[in-house]
């Protein structure tokens, strides 16, 4: 049984009497919306940081050929059907790493070749979406964690990304590829590469939060909580100095790679927000190990790369 409707008897029942209230509310809403960034008019602002977010990006899939996908609407190039928007499956593509020469040698140029294949029919992927101003980001780390390289393989006409590097020693290297196949979700895939010869020494890391300097910046680190624990968010705040000339590098205020001392975990992150000279990353370290954390910041066109060592303890039960 429906409840009887009640007549409004309050002071806002009359439009004229309500006007001051409406005006006040409207003003507050306008100010608050502007504060929140909901500016209804004005020139469109370009997106300078096209970070993919699975929660807001649709993937367009052919209903007949589910391997035909796009990040925008269109028609299936195979059957001509209109692509329909769906929830992107976080599927994993295949990344194959080959080298020229086949057996890399220390201190000589080796070209890393990245071949991407789709997970549905294992066909070569040749269409990629730019992410952080590049089609492909590669991170190469040596087993002893003393060698770090962040570069950008170039896509050839054959669909293969190539990246020349000079690996300084024999042993194992882990390579993290960060790329975004069109019609899928961004991929963070790790590969392993060996330079023949004596195996590298596993690193022995201990806490190192000391202030670091590179080309034209000094970077210091604090963490919250002070002691990082596995499985819980750790806020890492990097204070950069000087602030003048500090600028985005590849569309982000900073880039981070964290590698566990056994090279099993490779984590690539960008800062969630920046506040003056403080750049903050929220990191969930997966396991109780010690992690070497490289961060890159840019000032006056010069990239600064420094690293810190962060011991991570087991979370209290």
């Amino acid at each position: 049984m429906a409840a009887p409707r009640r007549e409004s008897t309050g002071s806002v029942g009359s439009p004229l009497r309500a006007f001051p209230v409406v005006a006040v509310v409207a003003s507050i809403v306008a100010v608050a919306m502007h504060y929140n960034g909901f500016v209804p008019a004005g020139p469109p602002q370009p997106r300078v940081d096209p970070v993919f977010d699975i929660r807001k990006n649709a993937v367009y899939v052919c209903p007949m050929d589910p391997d035909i996908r796009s990040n925008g609407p269109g028609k299936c190039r195979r059957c001509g059907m209109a692509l329909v928007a769906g929830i992107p499956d976080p599927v994993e593509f295949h990344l194959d790493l080959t080298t020229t020469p086949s057996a890399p040698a220390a201190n000589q140029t080796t070209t890393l070749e990245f071949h991407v294949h789709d997970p549905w029919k294992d066909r070569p992927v040749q269409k990629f979406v730019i992410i952080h101003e590049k089609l492909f980001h590669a991170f190469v780390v040596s087993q002893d964690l003393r060698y770090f390289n962040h570069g950008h393989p170039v896509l050839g006409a054959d669909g293969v990304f190539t990246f020349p590097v000079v690996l300084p020693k024999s042993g194992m290297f882990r390579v993290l590829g960060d790329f975004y196949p069109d019609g899928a979700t961004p991929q963070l895939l790790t590969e392993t590469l060996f330079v023949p010869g004596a195996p590298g020494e596993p690193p022995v890391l201990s806490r190192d939060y000391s202030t670091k300097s590179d080309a034209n910046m000094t970077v210091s680190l604090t963490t919250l909580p002070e002691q990082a624990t596995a499985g819980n968010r750790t806020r890492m705040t990097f204070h950069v100095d000087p602030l003048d000339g500090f600028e985005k590098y590849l569309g982000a205020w900073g880039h981070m790679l964290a590698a566990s001392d056994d090279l099993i975990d490779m984590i690539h992150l960008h800062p969630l927000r920046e506040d003056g000279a403080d750049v903050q990353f929220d990191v969930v370290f997966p396991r109780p190990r010690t992690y070497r954390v490289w961060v890159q910041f840019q000032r006056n066109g010069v990239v600064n790369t420094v690293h810190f060592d962060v011991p991570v303890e087991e979370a209290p039960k």
Partner: protein
Amino acid sequence: MRRAIIAAALALAVCAHLRAHDVSKTPITWNREISRIFFDRCVSCHRPDGTSFSLMTYPDVQPRAVAIRDAVLSRRMPPWGAVKGFGDFRNDQALTAEQIELITDWIQDDTPKGNNPRMLPPLPKFAPTPAISVPPDAIRLSDTLVVKSPIVLDGLFPQQAADGSQIVAVRPDGKVVPLLWLYGYDDRFRHPFLLRRPLALEAGTIIRGVKAPASVLLLPQSPAPSPQPPGTR
């Protein structure tokens, strides 16, 4: 005036709500993202009539969220038992970095269920688990092995696993091919690692990385069925 203040407070609350639900802040939910991962990677075992407790529904999963996070981050679950990016396997059941991040973020944000059940994916269908068959010509590797005649390797099957073993093939030209890096392999969940692409290994290739008493079976590719002569069907 009192009503004006209340109205203003309500307006601010609405704006704060809008900010909290800014598109880029829309939470990860069970209905939308997390159920897909569980259906894909967990429920073949974790289901009613499965081999372990059910993780098919939100009420199944939510009370176990912290334990699930720990198991996922430590790589105990799914029980794949190998490091990603060291060898490439067609039966890979490990979670991707993106899936681990989604699960972790979801649990850090208090496991929202979502308010639209239509976002749930269809329930998965379960096929009988195929029995593991070891080909009779499998090669037992319990120390360094030199390939005498060319073989095409289709997979590796740990028998007595030694955690941390890095198994590689060293070709005659010196190239080192990563085959399998065991990590957290649990004999209770024994399974082979089947290569995504069979790997041809020439004579003289050295396979190493297993130390006795640990052993791993090298599974050669089954020979292709011989073409039948015309008229035999």
